[in-house]
């Protein structure tokens, strides 16, 4: 059975290219059978995509055009009121600008850290396995669990950091690290870098190890220094990996929710309110309006798609990959 698949696929492909020639009817029934079988093979995927991806998006699109309260449910269409209400909300501007700042900050810090960690542990030297494991362990923790862990660390009542920072003269012993806008932002950035550095390090390592050894050998023979090798070989050949990690980091940061929901609840005074936290508030806390939450979700989705496409373009990944 299994051997039929590539054969059938090949036949369909060659037929499509070479066009029809003789024995039409038999071939047609065979084609139909092949096509049916093909559909049978992709059906699970189609169903999964439809149920898990298309249906929710469809539902959110409908919701965004309806009056749909958390407790009362669907109460008729009201398009485009939800979008108007969302865009008129004074909190939206603050949330967008904070989310962008947070995204820039985490990405600018996280990417180089991950890159240098990957360079550091790339060679298999004596301690590197231990080092790799140690750096990767936080990635095994869920963001929510990690946030709770840091919540305890930052707590002025039970956390160990307050006395340390107080002794260094950086803050008052009894005030909270999460109590000021700057403190809350940096506390979250530290958490995220700790949680994700290992993950991005592994991704970068895979990219590094895909670069052929011979290139470095040849460059060494030509007398290129380590820095030149890094600039002329590693970075250019790592471009697809860098693009991928950048997109993951930026998309992930734009969608930041768990860490802020647990650590700061958007506080103090809405200074760490992210866009997704605002969606959550619309749906479950303040407006209790699923319609408005859906409208903002649709806007975020559109922006996210646009940002990802622009990024791929800007990094030149699509063309280069296609041509190579």
């Amino acid at each position, binding site marked *: 059975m299994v051997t039929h698949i590539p054969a059938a696929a090949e036949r369909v492909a060659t037929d499509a290219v070479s066009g029809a020639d003789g024995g039409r009817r038999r071939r047609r029934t065979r084609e139909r059978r092949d096509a049916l079988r093909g559909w049978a093979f992709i059906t699970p995927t189609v169903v999964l995509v439809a149920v898990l991806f298309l249906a929710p998006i469809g539902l*959110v699109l409908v919701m965004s055009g309806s009056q749909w309260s958390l*407790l009362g449910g669907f*109460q008729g269409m009201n398009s485009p009121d939800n979008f108007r209400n969302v865009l008129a909300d004074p909190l939206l501007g603050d949330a967008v600008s904070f989310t962008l700042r947070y995204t820039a900050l985490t990405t600018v810090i996280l990417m180089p850290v991950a890159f240098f960690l990957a360079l550091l542990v790339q060679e298999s030297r004596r301690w590197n396995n231990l080092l790799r494991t140690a750096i990767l362990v936080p990635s095994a923790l869920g963001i929510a669990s990690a946030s709770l862990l840091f919540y305890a660390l930052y707590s002025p*009542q039970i956390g160990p950091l307050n006395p340390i920072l107080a002794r260094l003269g950086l803050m008052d012993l*009894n005030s909270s690290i999460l109590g000021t806008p700057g403190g809350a932002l940096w506390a979250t950035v530290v958490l995220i870098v700790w949680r994700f550095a290992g993950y991005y390090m592994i991704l970068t390592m895979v990219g590094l190890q895909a670069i052929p050894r011979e290139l470095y050998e040849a460059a060494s023979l030509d007398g290129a220094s380590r820095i030149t090798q890094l600039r002329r070989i590693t970075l250019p050949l790592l471009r697809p990996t860098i693009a991928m990690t950048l997109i993951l980091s930026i998309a992930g940061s734009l969608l930041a929710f768990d860490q802020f929901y647990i650590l700061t609840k958007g506080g103090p005074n809405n200074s760490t309110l992210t866009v997704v936290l605002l*969606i959550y508030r619309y749906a479950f806390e303040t407006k209790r309006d699923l319609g408005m939450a859906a409208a903002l*979700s649709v806007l975020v989705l559109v922006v996210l*798609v646009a940002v990802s496409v622009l990024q*791929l373009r800007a990094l030149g990944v699509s063309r280069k990959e*296609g041509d190579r």
Partner: protein
Amino acid sequence: MSATRFRPRAAAVMAGGLLVTGLAACGGDGGGGGETTGSGGGTAAASGEGVDDGTELTMWTRAPLERQAINAVEAYNATHENQVALEILPNDDVEGMVGSAAQTDSLPDILAGDVVRIPYWTEQGIFTDLTDQIGSLENVDDLQEGHIDAGTLDGAMHTLPFVTDISVMVWNKDLYEQAGLDPEAGPTTLDEFVEHAQAVAALDQDGVAGSYLSGQSGGALVFTLLPTIWASGEEVLNDDGTEAMLDGEAAQAVYSAYRELAETPNGLGAGSREETGATWTAPFQEGNIGVMPYPYTAVTGMFEDAAFEVGVAAIPGVDGGGSTFLGGDAIGISRSSENVDQAWNFMAWLMSDDAQQTVFADNNDTAASLTVLADGYADADPRTEVANATVADGRTPVARNFNEAFNAAGSPWQLLIQDAVWGEESAIGSHNDAVNAVLAP
């Protein structure tokens, strides 16, 4: 080749899409029961005591009132055929869980909720109309009104008082003595409150402060600050809860009192400005605060356990008087309950003077029955009587969007207090406008 080109982009799009849509969609099931009026529950109205036939009833309440809820349910289960299974929800998750249960018609039989959330729930048709049943209660006029009013919509009643949580002024008698104040006399005016707090602050002891404020918790702030405004004869909301008057004379006096304390060294405890409400009762409990408005449910435990003596009085107005915030939870029967008569049996029993006595009064908790409040605390601590006496002058603010305007994290009311006490005083007016924008229908 084109596959490699497509994949990263598609993956980014899909990842983004799934994450975003997953979040917004999880509250809805696509069905959407469009019930918007406060009727429902297919069973014919039963009056009197309801039915006690061994039915399993489900009930939800929230974590802060866990102790009182368990007392009530255990007492009922021990004496009735019906058995109530109690589920405790985390305070922050209540709205979301009730919302998703409402959309899938899986609400519990009996639902208790923060009284400030009740008007909105009632309007959204969460509760069964209990007008006939409540009307048939013998002692309905003897029950604390705030929690019934909160669930009354167009004359139809839906809720009864469950746990009453009131705010009182408490002071640390030990610190008062050290500061040269009369430990038996708490503040009777707003000025005295400031004077007392400043006297304690002047002790300049390590970690000790005059007073404390939960600056980032809108819920704690209404609970502690509004009674002074009411006691001064001013209103906070108009009758239908669509307009706020948070820039009135008494309100301004409250803000400047706390501003004065904030500017006094040790005037307000460290962390007041950043306190999100999770630990706002702790500093007083640890004996580090001189005088502050405080939830009475947290006071009774301190009579025996605290290392210092606690004084209790009504929260005073600007020039005297007293009032309290009638908070806590109201209770009703959900629209999806199929055991309305049995659930009513629990509620009717809970309203009886006997139950009010054993469940609440005997545990030093505040009863909802005025008769029990007056007579049921003969053996109780005299401070409980002082607290109970405030109920008659207490208030529950009722507004459809109260939660968003006041209680929610980062609410305009929270921002108002932040500016009024620590920031730009001149912004009070514009914050009041922001509160009004939320309250307006």
